[in-house]
């Protein structure tokens, strides 16, 4: 049969996000796949070298549109490590709440994307609605729905508003009570099982070699979660589990998303219970004069997609000398996706891609 080159994206019905894949196909079998990022390159890492430490803070969240808070967190942690700033305990708890709510909203968004891709429009709509409820909470807490610009060096920007705890609990209740419906219509749906089982299968060894983290690694059976390995914020003070699965396929990965959401809800509830009184912000020095001590730092957090790292170098000036993000989507979207698409069928491209949970702006930055 004749070999063809097929462009999958960036303007393709099945493509979610600003990315494209060039496929070499024979019939409907893929011989070779090549991911083409670069549709959303904004040069953040370079831009950050030209902005002061505090001016970078509203910018980092834009690297990952879907889950901006882990970006803010990792930047705040990097600056705090370089400048040796202590964070008040209450702020750590608030950060944990924000990060878990953000994981929840991100996973719901992921559910929307995956369900949508497979044609489960009902579930996609539910997920979108529930995500919006979480965004309402963010709006209440931070003043914005998507780019929260809330976790900043030294703590968080404002204390919890009055009545916030009850609003969180009621939202979590609404979402939690619809878990059986999600299960019945989606996760336990035979159609989903048939479409996802054995798709995009990867072994633990391959996953490790290619730099996979997050659900992709955990779906192969490895218990790898930075919240447990190197606890940050208040993760060492709350009790939670790391769900894992053995098969390493799309089905396991999507199930992990579901299980992680349940864990997130538990973490938020515990934090709301245990949160201490006190300050939430240790004032940073005057932003017009602030120079961060010479040094370099690597900090990492567990974002909803895997290990999110930040390597930052300061040469003692008012701006960072070099910033580099290690984003989980980078290996997932480039190395692993290309590998998994070899010998796959065209019909499974979108399926595989979204089960890897790739966010294109993370790759491009």
């Amino acid at each position, binding site marked *: 049969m004749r070999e063809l080159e097929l462009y999958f994206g960036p303007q393709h019905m099945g493509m979610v996000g600003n990315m494209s894949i060039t496929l070499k196909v024979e019939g409907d079998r893929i011989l070779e796949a090549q991911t083409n990022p670069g549709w959303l390159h904004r040069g953040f890492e370079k831009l950050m070298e030209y*902005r002061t430490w*505090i*001016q*970078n*803070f*509203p*910018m980092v969240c834009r690297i990952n549109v879907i889950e901006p808070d882990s970006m803010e967190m990792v930047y705040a942690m990097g600056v705090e490590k370089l400048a040796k700033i202590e964070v008040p305990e209450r702020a750590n708890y608030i950060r944990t709440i924000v990060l878990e709510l953000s994981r929840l909203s991100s996973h719901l968004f992921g559910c929307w994307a995956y369900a949508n891709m497979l044609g489960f429009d*009902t579930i996609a709509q539910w997920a979108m*609605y529930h995500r919006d409820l979480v965004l*309402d909470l963010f*709006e*209440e*807490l*931070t*003043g*914005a729905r998507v*780019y929260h*610009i809330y976790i900043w060096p030294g703590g968080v*920007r*404002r204390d919890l*508003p009055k009545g916030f705890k009850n609003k969180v609990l009621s939202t979590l209740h609404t979402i939690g009570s619809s878990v059986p*419906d999600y*299960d*019945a*219509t*989606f*996760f*336990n*749906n*035979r*159609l*989903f*099982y*048939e479409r996802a089982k054995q798709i995009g299968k990867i072994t633990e060894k391959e996953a490790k070699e290619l730099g996979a983290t997050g659900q992709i690694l955990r779906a192969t059976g490895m218990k790898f979660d930075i919240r447990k390995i190197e606890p940050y914020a208040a993760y060492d003070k709350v009790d939670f*589990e790391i*769900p894992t*699965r053995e098969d390493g396929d799309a089905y396991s990965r999507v*199930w992990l998303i579901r*299980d992680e959401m*349940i864990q997130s809800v538990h973490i938020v509830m515990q934090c709301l219970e245990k949160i201490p009184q006190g300050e939430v*912000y240790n*004032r*940073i*020095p*005057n*932003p*017009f*004069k602030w120079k961060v001590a010479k040094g370099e730092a690597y900090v990492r957090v567990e974002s909803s997609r895997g290990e999110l790292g930040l390597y930052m170098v300061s040469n003692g000036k008012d701006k960072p000398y070099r910033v580099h993000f290690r984003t989980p989507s980078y290996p997932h979207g480039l190395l692993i996706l290309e590998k998994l698409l070899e010998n796959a069928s065209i019909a499974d491209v979108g399926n595989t891609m979204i089960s890897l949970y790739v966010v294109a702006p993370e790759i491009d930055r």
Partner: protein
Amino acid sequence: MKEKLKNGGKPSLLSPFKAIKYLFKKPVTLRYPFELKEPSMRYRGFHLNDWDKCTGCGNCADICPNEAITMQEIPEIETEPGKKNERPQIDYGRCCFCGLCIDICPPGSLRLSRDYFHIHFKTGTFNLLAKDEKIDKESFLPLDKYSVLKASLAHRKKDNEGFAPDLKYSLFEPERVPMPQVRPEERKLSFIEQVLGYSREEAKREASRCLECKLCEEACPAHLKISDYIRAIYEDRPDESLKKIFEDNPIPSICGRICMKHCEEACSLSIRGESVAVRWLKRYAADTIEDYKRTLELKPAKATSKKVAVIGAGPGGLSVAYFLRLKGHNVTVFDSLAGGGGMMRIGPPPYRLPLEAIDKDVNHIASLGVQFTFNTTVGKDILFEDIMKEYDAVYLGIGTTVNRSTRVKNSEKCLLALNFLKENKMGKGLKVGKEIIVIGGGNVALDVAREALRIQYMQYHNQKVITRTVSLEDWDEMPATEEEIEDAKAEGIQFSPGWGPKEVVLDEKGSIKGLLCMKVKSVFDEEGRFRPTFYQENETFLKGDMIIEAIGQAPDFSFIPEKLFKKLEFTERKKVKVNENGMTSIPRVFAGGDIVNLNLDAVTAIADAKSAAEGIVLYLRCSHSF
């Protein structure tokens, strides 16, 4: 739950039909624009700016990561010290609604509203001069006149405050690094300097608070480059800092202690917090550098043949001598005292301004080649006419040296403030009374009172002594600085504000028994001029055995020959009239300081001296065309 995680349920074909029940539920979507979602109370929408509170400092524009804010000059707004006539204009094509501008805004005038609709056909309307409903009544509408279909930057909801400034989360530090001071109980027993000065760390920390908006520089009469020299201190380069100070002020050691700090009143941080301690930082720079000469390496320009006489070695005289000397002119300073400093030498007691601090500044100016002729009273030891003959230009920095008296009955028995201060500092010292009354409410009166108190403690060890000030002005009008009043109170000075002296009461031997006072009705007239009125019947008697009058001073022009003096023109407020070059109506005679300006302080005298020095340089260069 663990069980469930492992099993992951059982795939079924029928279970999805459970979703059918959702068909009978109400939809969760909102039918915009008939159903609107109310934004949260912290929503970060379009800006609001209170123009009355806004100082135009421009910190919002400086911190904006997207350069979305530009400061627009508004000609209708009047500028005043601490307020520029600029207001922020926001380009919503650039704004990312992060709200950093809110957290840096020192007066807290900038806020974000909960409006976020902008429906308009013209792209230019994206630029908004942020205002609020106080001054822009047309754009901010009550609910009944508001329609979301017309919502834009010019059609907004009233009372729709969103993300608000909060001092607790501000990006600037509202609190000042406390200045280490000698405790009141300890300091009132001696003339030890009250303020100890910042350490290196403290100075750096205090300097780090400055936002560099430069409102202070406009407020300072001498326009010192304050933000530059504070930045140099922050960067641990006091030598750099001192160099910056010396560009405009050659007596930082004096000014760093007693300056009236107009800058600190204008400081944008002082609106919601404490101003940057500009004066103490100047003092830090001056005190840290032990040898000005070696650090500054100032070299006078090539010598000219011109000679300038400066009468009075006060702040103004010293400054004019310094600036002229740097231009290469030969400067001689005449002063009747034994050292430089003028009123600074007599007035501020050593606990505020030690003599060493004055001499440090004066010696440096002398080291540049300025001739000082001390112990020389012009008009007595040397005639003004002779000076006029010998020198190419003359600068009058004579200040106000004659004490005013209340002229009430028996007031000749009272002491005058300057005589009292002078006698203690330079004479043999006076025997003071046990109960001293100081008449006056200004800084000099408090200097006198606090000095008198110290002498009392020395002369009447372990005995009960009282020092009290009587002033026409009530607490809120008292001309003395708040700081001085607080310090005096802490030391135990008693105050009787709102009373005017009526008569000095004597006993049969003719010595002072006390002061009879009457209640003040008002101090100033409607035009704001000093014209006190009293309730004659409402009297009180204050016991005292020594009364010192400190109610202001007047200049002494007696050294100027009558023929010349007639030519000297005065303004309505009885100040010497000078032109833009600082020259009086007598050709070749320039003037500045307390005899010219209404501020009556050292830094204004320096400002006068600076501009007069430029005038003199100009005059000497092209005197034929003057």
